[in-house]
C-alpha cells in the first residue's frame, strides 16, 4: 500500500470480491419471491391440412393449425432481479401405441411463445389467438390422437440462475374429469386432432379440402 499504483490495484481487487458477494446476495434474494403464476388455456379451433414443407418438396405431410384462448397472470414472476420472462404454449401427445406406423411415444411441439420484458406485460389475455407455429408430426400424420396443451415459463434474471416452470391441466380439473363430472374447463386443455380437412360428421363439399 506504499504507492498510489499499489493502492489502486488493491481497491480494485477488493471491489471484485465485494461485487461478487453483492451479486450472490442478489441471486439468492429471488428465494424471497415465490413464483405462483396461473394460466388457463382453451383450445378453440384445430384444423389439420395436408401440405408440403416447401415449394420444391415432393413430400406431403399434415400440418395442424391451432387457435386458442389464453389467460395468464405471470406478475408473481417479476421482482427486482427479473430481466425478462419467456412464456410458451406447447402441444403434447403420445405415440398412440395402437396406431400403425407411429413409433415416437412422446411428442411435444411449441405452438406459441412470447418474451415478456416487464411487469406491465405480465398479464396475458388472448382471444382466438392463432398459433405462431403450425406444427407437423414427426411421422407426418396426426391420426386423430388426443393432445394436451401445456403452458411453460422461464424467468431470466439479471444475476443468478434461470428458473423454469410448467402449468399443465390444472389438478382440480383433472380430478373432476376422473370423477366423471362435467368437463367444463378441462376441455380447454385437451383436444383431439381432427382428421385431415375437418370432421367426418360434417364433410366439407368436395374440392374445398386441400
Amino acid at each position: 500500500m506504499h504507492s498510489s499504483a499499489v493502492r489502486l490495484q488493491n481497491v480494485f481487487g477488493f471491489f471484485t470480491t465485494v461485487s461478487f458477494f453483492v451479486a450472490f446476495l442478489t441471486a439468492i434474494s429471488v428465494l424471497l419471491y415465490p413464483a405462483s403464476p396461473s394460466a388457463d388455456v382453451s383450445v378453440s379451433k384445430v384444423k389439420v391440412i395436408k401440405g408440403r414443407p416447401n415449394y420444391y418438396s415432393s413430400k406431403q405431410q399434415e400440418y395442424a393449425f391451432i387457435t386458442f384462448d389464453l389467460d395468464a397472470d405471470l406478475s408473481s414472476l417479476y421482482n427486482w432481479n427479473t430481466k425478462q420472462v419467456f412464456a410458451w404454449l406447447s402441444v403434447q401427445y403420445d405415440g398412440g401405441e395402437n396406431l400403425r406406423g407411429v413409433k415416437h411415444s412422446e411428442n411435444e411441439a411449441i405452438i406459441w411463445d412470447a418474451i415478456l420484458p416487464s411487469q406491465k406485460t405480465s398479464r396475458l389475455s388472448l382471444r382466438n389467438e392463432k398459433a405462431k407455429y403450425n406444427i407437423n408430426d414427426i411421422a407426418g400424420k396426426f391420426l386423430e390422437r388426443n393432445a394436451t396443451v401445456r403452458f411453460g415459463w422461464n424467468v431470466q434474471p439479471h444475476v443468478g440462475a434461470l428458473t423454469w416452470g410448467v402449468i399443465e391441466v390444472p389438478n382440480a380439473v383433472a380430478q373432476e374429469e376422473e370423477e366423471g363430472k362435467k368437463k367444463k374447463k378441462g376441455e380447454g386443455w385437451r383436444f383431439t386432432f381432427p382428421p385431415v380437412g375437418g370432421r367426418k360428421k360434417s364433410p366439407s363439399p368436395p374440392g374445398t379440402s386441400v
Partner: protein
Amino acid sequence: MDAIQTLIDGNIDFEGQRLAERLTTVVLILAGLTAWLLGFFMQDLKYTLYAGLGGTVLTILIVVPPWPMYNRHPVSWLPAGSRGEEAGEKKGQ
C-alpha cells in the same frame, strides 16, 4: 520532474499504509451493503449498480491519492554515518 514523480508515486508512511488498507476494506464493504439494500428496497437493480460503482469511486478518491493523513507518522531515520557506531553500541550492550 521530481515533483511530478513524487505525486505519481504517492508514497505514504507505514501507519498511513495500515490506515489505507483498513479504509479500503471498510468503505468498500459498506458501499456493497448500501448498494444491495438500496436496490432491494427500491426494487430496482439499477440502484445497486450505480451505488456500488459510486462507492468504489469514492473509495478510490479516499485511498489512492497520498492525502496528508497518510503521512502523519514519518519514519525518523538515524543521522547519516551513525549507523556503525550505534549498531556497535547496541551489540555491546
